[in-house]
């Protein structure tokens, strides 16, 4: 039995370690610069040259029937049919997959090369790997670099020249990106805001009203200013682009073409500013390789994605994942702890509480996509929409007033009964209130809560915070957003926190509670000063479980906020932008899904998918380690350390 049980544990551990090792090895290998190989391959009657990074070797087998007249190696013959004069031959063909890049020239990223067709194999000294801002990697041999019309030929001199101009040219490229993304983005946002502001006035007063015209006039002057600014910026960008165009790098691909700056003009060489990173792969020393490797990691961790996410970094996704998890924790821990407190400390243990407890446990087993659908329907389309544009069907003012009076009356009844029977005084803690009265009070308070919700839902005095934007088809909160995704995940992980907290509360010994009561502490004082501190490590355990579950969830957030490419980070310092909580966000888990299944060439994106997976695991582990550290500090504090 020891062997059986131990064996099961060993198998489970091996599987987990194997998975982690697999992901880590692939994740770490992605950014290592491989050498370039140039192979000359027989292709029918002609030959073709393939230049690329060998990525995979395997053996391709197939069987074929050939006439007996053709002599083949004896051990590859499977069977011989004398009557028909044919033999069945099994061919085993070793082959290599080369990453050839140059998608804009050849329309493919990878190419299989069968070993039997290889005529020649070489490692060209000046074979270059060129990472570009568009169209993925390019592979070719360095020929020349032209700066301001002066061409430096010969790879050694050209490489030196390239390194000289590369820095300034990249800076120009960054400047263009900053202008286009930040400055022009801001102006277009402001223009958009103005359009919506005007539309809002139009909604309120009508398009023919004096207010509308006044507003339109007021905004028109500002609009002119902004448009003039855009023209200036465009001029600046054109200027920068012209300067960028003065430096080009001529790299000749194995097909004989040069790598073009623009696919439609094949004779114009690549601009230096279009190069993200380039290196002569076969000349790199170990230190150089390490440099390339680290610079790629740095880019991956700190930069934004390029090329439909298959290149560049995942910085926005890291931020999105961490923020999402943090906001989720902020929501789920207090709610979970308070719910557990009620269930364990206040509620009378009985069939009803058991039923609630079982239901909470079962919630943990609901498929996460169901939470996603619920979050989209409830948070985005009901709560968000309500906040955006107010009630869909507001009551008439008089009717609503009556409803409000009725609500006040019910609340008054509840408050009156409560005060009259001293419900919240200490005496009532022990059976002074009859069960019937409790039920009545519960119903009264429940219905007043429902009535308040009803009042809010039908109020004619609330038109939403962002009605105009919403009416123009750009909702502010009534759409998928970071805050709704966090709330959805909080809902998803709530059972974990409740169950862990409840267990921790139940583990606080009765004698300690009684000690507190005997000192004259009230129930709440006992809970706050004695029970909760004792249960805190258990609460942290629940939080750790919630983080581990929430950070890795993809299915629900796909529906409520995660996007392939978010224009902005889901955080902002400005209250007028709601601190960015209403923005869509990028998420590592969704990024993995996107890379592996949604990209143009999933084979090319696969290494990135591994690396992203590895990174997600690392982030989840880091978040957990942080929580575990806090928990062990708490435990130590109660086990004899200093306060």
């Amino acid at each position, binding site marked *: 039995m020891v062997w059986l049980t131990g064996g099961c544990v060993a198998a489970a551990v091996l599987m987990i370690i194997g998975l982690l090792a697999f992901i880590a090895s692939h994740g770490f290998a992605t950014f290592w610069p491989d050498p370039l190989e140039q192979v000359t391959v027989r292709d029918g009657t002609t030959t073709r040259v393939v230049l690329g990074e060998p990525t995979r070797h395997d053996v391709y087998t197939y069987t074929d029937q050939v006439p007996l007249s053709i002599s083949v190696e004896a051990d590859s013959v499977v069977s011989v049919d004398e009557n028909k004069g044919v033999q069945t031959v099994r061919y085993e063909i070793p082959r290599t997959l080369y990453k050839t890049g140059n998608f804009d020239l050849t329309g493919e990223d990878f190419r299989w090369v069968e070993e039997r067709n290889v005529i020649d194999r070489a490692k060209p000294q000046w074979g270059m790997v060129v990472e570009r801002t568009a169209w993925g990697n390019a592979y070719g041999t360095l020929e020349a670099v032209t700066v301001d019309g002066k061409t430096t030929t010969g790879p050694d001199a050209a490489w030196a020249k390239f390194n000289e101009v590369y820095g300034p040219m990249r800076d120009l490229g960054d400047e263009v990106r900053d202008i286009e993304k930040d400055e022009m983005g801001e102006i277009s946002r402001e223009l958009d805001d103005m359009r919506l502001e005007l539309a809002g006035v139009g909604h309120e007063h009508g398009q023919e009203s004096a207010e509308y015209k006044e507003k339109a006039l007021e905004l028109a002057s500002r609009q002119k200013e902004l448009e003039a600014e855009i023209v200036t910026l465009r001029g600046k960008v054109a200027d920068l682009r012209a300067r960028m165009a003065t430096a080009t790098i001529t790299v000749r691909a194995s097909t004989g073409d040069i790598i073009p700056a623009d696919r439609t003009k094949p004779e114009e060489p690549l601009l230096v500013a279009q190069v993200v990173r380039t290196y002569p792969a076969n000349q790199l020393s170990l230190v150089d390789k390490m440099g390339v490797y680290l610079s790629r990691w740095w880019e991956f961790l700190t930069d934004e994605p390029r090329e439909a996410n298959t290149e560049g970094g995942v910085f926005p996704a890291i931020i999105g994942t961490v923020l999402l998890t943090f906001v989720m924790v902020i929501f789920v821990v207090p709610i979970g702890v308070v719910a557990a407190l009620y269930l364990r400390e206040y509620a009378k243990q009985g069939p009803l509480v058991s039923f609630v407890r079982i239901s909470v446990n079962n919630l943990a087993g609901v498929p996460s996509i169901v939470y996603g659908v619920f979050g989209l329907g409830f948070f985005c389309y009901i709560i968000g929409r309500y906040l955006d544009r107010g009630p869909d069907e507001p009551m008439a003012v008089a009717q609503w007033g009556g409803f409000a009076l009725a609500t006040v009356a019910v609340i008054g009844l509840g408050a009156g009964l409560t005060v009259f029977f001293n419900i919240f005084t200490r005496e009532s803690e022990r059976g002074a209130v009859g069960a019937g009265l409790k039920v009545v009070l519960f119903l009264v308070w429940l219905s007043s809560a429902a009535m308040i919700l009803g009042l809010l839902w039908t109020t004619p005095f609330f038109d939403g915070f962002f009605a105009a934007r919403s009416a123009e088809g750009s909702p502010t909160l009534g759409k998928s957003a970071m805050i709704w995704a966090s709330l959805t995940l909080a809902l998803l992980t709530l059972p974990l926190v409740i169950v862990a907290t409840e267990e921790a509360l139940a583990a606080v010994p009765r004698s300690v509670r009684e000690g507190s009561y005997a*000192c*004259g502490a009230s129930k709440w004082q006992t809970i706050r000063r004695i029970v909760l501190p004792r249960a805190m490590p258990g609460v942290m355990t629940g939080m750790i479980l919630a983080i581990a579950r929430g950070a890795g969830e993809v299915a629900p957030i796909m529906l409520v906020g995660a996007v392939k490419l978010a224009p902005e980070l889901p955080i902002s310092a400005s209250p007028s932008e709601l601190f960015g909580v209403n923005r869509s966000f990028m998420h590592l888990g969704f990024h993995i899904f996107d890379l592996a299944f949604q990209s143009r060439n999933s084979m090319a994106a696969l290494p990135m998918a591994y690396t992203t997976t590895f990174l997600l695991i690392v982030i989840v582990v880091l978040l957990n380690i942080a929580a575990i550290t806090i928990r062990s500090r708490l435990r130590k504090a109660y086990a*004899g350390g200093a306060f």
Partner: protein
Amino acid sequence: MSMSTSPRNMVIPSAHELSSAANAKQPATESSLPPGVRRDVSVQSFVKEGTPFPAEIHDELKTETTVVSVEDFSLYYNLTAKALHNISLNIPHGKVTALIGPSGCGKSTLLRSVNRLNDLIDGVKMTGNMYLNGDPIYAKNVDVIELRKRMGMVFQKSNPFPMSIFENVVFSLRIDGENRRSVLEEACERSLKGSALWNEVKDRLSSSALGLSGGQQQRLCIARAIAAEPEVLLMDEPCSALDPIATSKIEDLITQLRGNYTVLIVTHNMQQAARVSDYTAFMYLGRLVEYGPTSTLFTNPHLKDTEDYITGRFG
């Protein structure tokens, strides 16, 4: 209340007399009893008949000032199972009163009823009343919290709170809203000196109370219980989880507390009761059987049940 009206008799029965009294099979008449034992009534027979048992309460108690008085108090678990049967007794001021009796006789239940800790258990019902210095303990408009603040309690198993030694001691002041450092420090020092723990912990008041040894923890709990100057100190078998050395320290402490504090202590250990208490109440089957000065009760009990118990024939 049923009080014995017979005069005091301090004659100590010999071992022979004791055993002959215990061996008497027939309910003996008063004249045939040994000199110390007044009444040969058995609680068992009253239980069988279902009539209330009149407790034997010695005259010495009449002259004492009462701190806690229990009047015709009964307690039911699960609303029907009667655990305490019409108990009436007075706890004298400034004295140590021990509650003894076999397991399950209700002595802990009685102790926990004094500060209404049994309220926390579902399905407990009480009749009768208790008074703390004349104020009713069981009445509709009693503030239980305020009531408990007037008493201190020490439990069977030491239960320090998960906080520093200092915060443990001043807990009852803190929850009362006392935040003046000087007041708290004064109370802490006084209580820790009162519980003979001051010299051992005065240099590490801010370290966790959970790092103390078992005996120290129990003395810390005593310090906590006396910090708010309680009118009565309730002790529920305070030494049952301690080794002999720690036990003797606690017993010394209880002896020192005598006079300043009114102590009601439940104990399983009759030697302990004999050592530390001024008065002893013997309980059996949920009834108060006999209540009197410790020396009398242990040497010259009035009832045969008491004698059987203290000589170890049952329980």
